[in-house]
């Protein structure tokens, strides 16, 4: 048991921080803002990260990675999330779209799709949810008809972040066999987003414009060599991908950063000795440490060659509820002026806490709701029976 990063890892963190201090501009406050500078900035930053070998550092060298340890990768994630993820949509490439292609793709697919990701040149999105298939993902109805050398896809996806970035490619979940029970007959297609028949409609949210999109697919032709993995066996890819995703996001890191901002705010405003403020912020910090150590537990299991399905769900339960708690307690600390948003000169902490509260209203929903995580823990972790 060892709870410390190595000296080399700490040195790397210092280097990475210096790089980000230099490269991330003051105006950067994450994606889904109404700011035309955002997407070009993330593309540029990813190219620079790729130059240094830091973009896909934990990937094997044959796929354009540096073969770095999972712990160095974790450091990258933490530093990125603490700064509102300046890699933009490309974090998904590194965390799970790339790894799923590595694990399930043909050699041709690997050499076609992975190097552009490693160079930071391509935006992917994920077409999973549908209007009638949310938590019940396996009931999806977007249909891909097998026409031999190609598929013809019809249907609709929703909650597809970055589709309007615009995304270059989509990891698309489709039903290829409508006659089998719902977890069967599902396949994964790699879809060029410029294919005719694809329409993207942004959906505005409380957090800002075009966070989500609907994607309409109307007789979209997808070549057969863009089928990932086996026909009708796409569900295995989904399960693997979702586990990669859950471990892959250092959500606690941003929570920790916001807690630091609140500590600074309290000290600067004469509240550092206020017993209630101390009590509330210490509570958040303890929850942050709990979330962090459970994320590290999942990463340790990956490092030991295990697949932490249940443990990733547990870490996510902590991460997402922490995020919401920090948002609520943060606004409470700021008081009435906490209502003010970024851009208002009277907004405390430049409205960052307000934005954080808003952004995390759905954090217990995205990527598998809190209820789905609890079901995974109850059924797979504890062996409790499913609902009949």
């Amino acid at each position, binding site marked *: 048991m060892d709870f410390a990063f190595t000296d080399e890892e700490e040195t790397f963190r210092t280097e990475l921080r210096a790089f980000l201090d230099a490269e991330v501009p003051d105006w950067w406050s994450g994606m889904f803002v109404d700011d035309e500078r955002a997407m070009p900035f993330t593309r540029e930053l990813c190219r620079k990260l790729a130059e240094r070998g830091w973009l896909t550092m934990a990937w094997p060298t044959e796929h354009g990675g540096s073969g770095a340890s999972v712990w160095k990768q974790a450091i990258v994630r933490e530093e990125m999330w603490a700064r509102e993820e300046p890699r933009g949509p490309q974090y998904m490439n590194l965390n799970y779209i790339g790894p799923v292609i590595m694990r399930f793709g043909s050699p041709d697919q690997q050499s076609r799709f992975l190097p552009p990701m490693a160079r930071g040149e391509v935006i992917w999105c994920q077409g999973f949810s549908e209007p009638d298939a949310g*938590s019940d993902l396996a*009931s999806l109805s977007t249909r891909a008809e097998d026409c031999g050398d190609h598929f013809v896809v019809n249907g609709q996806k929703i909650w597809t972040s970055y589709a309007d970035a615009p995304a270059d490619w989509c990891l698309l979940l489709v039903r290829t066999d409508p006659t089998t029970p719902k977890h069967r007959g599902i396949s994964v297609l790699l879809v060029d987003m410029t294919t005719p028949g694809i329409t993207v409609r942004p959906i505005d949210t*409380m957090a800002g414009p075009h966070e989500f999109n609907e994607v309409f697919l109307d007789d979209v032709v997808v070549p057969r060599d863009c089928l990932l993995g086996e026909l009708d066996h796409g569900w295995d890819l989904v399960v693997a991908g979702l586990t990669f995703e859950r471990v892959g996001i250092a959500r606690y890191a941003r929570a920790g950063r916001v807690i630091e901002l609140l500590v600074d705010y309290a000290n600067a405003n004469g509240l550092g000795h206020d017993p209630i403020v101390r009590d509330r912020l210490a509570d958040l910090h303890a929850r942050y440490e709990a979330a962090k150590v459970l994320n590290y537990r999942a990463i340790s299991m990956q490092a030991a060659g295990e697949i932490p399905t249940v443990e990733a769900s547990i870490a996510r339960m902590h991460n997402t509820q922490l995020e*919401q708690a920090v948002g609520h307690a943060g*606004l409470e600390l700021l008081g009435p002026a906490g*209502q003010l948003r970024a851009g208002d000169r*009277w907004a405390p902490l430049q409205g960052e806490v307000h934005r954080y509260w808003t952004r995390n209203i*759905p954090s217990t*929903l995205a990527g598998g709701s809190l209820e789905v995580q609890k079901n995974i823990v109850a059924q797979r972790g504890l062996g409790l029976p499913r609902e009949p």
Partner: protein
Amino acid sequence: MNLEFTDEQRLLAETARAFVDRQRDGDDPWPAIAQAGWAAPLVPEGESAADAGIVELALVCEALGRGPVPSPLIATRVLASLPIYLDGTSEQQDRWLPAFADGSAIGTMALLESVSRDEWDTPGMSGVGRLSGTKIVVPWASRADVIVVATADGLRLVETASANVQIDGHDGLDGEPLAAVTFDSTDAEPLGTGDGGVTIAVVLDHAAVARLAYAVGAAERALELTVQHATDRHQFGRPIGSFQAVAHRCAEMRAEIDACRYLTYRAAWSLEHTTARSEAVTTAKSYANEALRRVFMHAHQVHGAMGFTTEHPLHRFTRVAKAFELSYGSTTRHRDRLATAMGLGPNV
């Protein structure tokens, strides 16, 4: 003891609710609110006729929260009208109270400064005759004709049409316009002769209750949307409301909203009928701050991602509840006041 509405109260609640149901986005509800008589001066502590008291105002606000229908009602009737009624000279009263009542004038109060923790903090701004400095998060300042300004030396009246008043709108959270109001040697007449301290406390207690009622209405509507969604939305072959995880969230919303509602009614009633004014208000405010957080977390969890979009109405109610929580005192502030009311402290 009898927690049922009187016939008059029931009729008022129904009338207000029907009014809210008729509202369309973009309508200015203020003229109709004034016409309905809902902006008449709020007469505290037992002197009120029907429709004139804080209980009745709470019922109207609860209905407005169901829209939500943002209006300058609380700003005018509580923040401006009440202190002028309590402390103003007869000249000040004659000038403003009839105009507030018939809707021809809008008023508000400026309390917060950049260093304030909340509205209960002692104001830092001071000055006799002329004021300088900035008040922030002033509700409805952009439409107000007169602002009651809290200063260290007492309450002041400033007309927004006078020279040297600059009003910069904030980007408000919940649809109620907020603004920073900057004075620069601005003419400010004293409100009556008092220091305003007691009056501010009375005004804040009334404002907290009115805002709470508005938030309760918003929460009630959010529950209706949530139950509707849980009934209509099917997953895994059944309505999601038949899953315990969803059904129990809805039940908890019901239990929490009911607690907030009856604590609100009790607080409003106490303001009119008892001298132990603050205890009932602080109880309601401190409880509801926490309870409404839970209510809206449940609402969003049941709605899924759809409830986070601006295409669905839920977010408007969520914003009302959060703006309520951040206004007129934090949980901490009110628990501390409540602790004093409970008798904690004096024996040391």
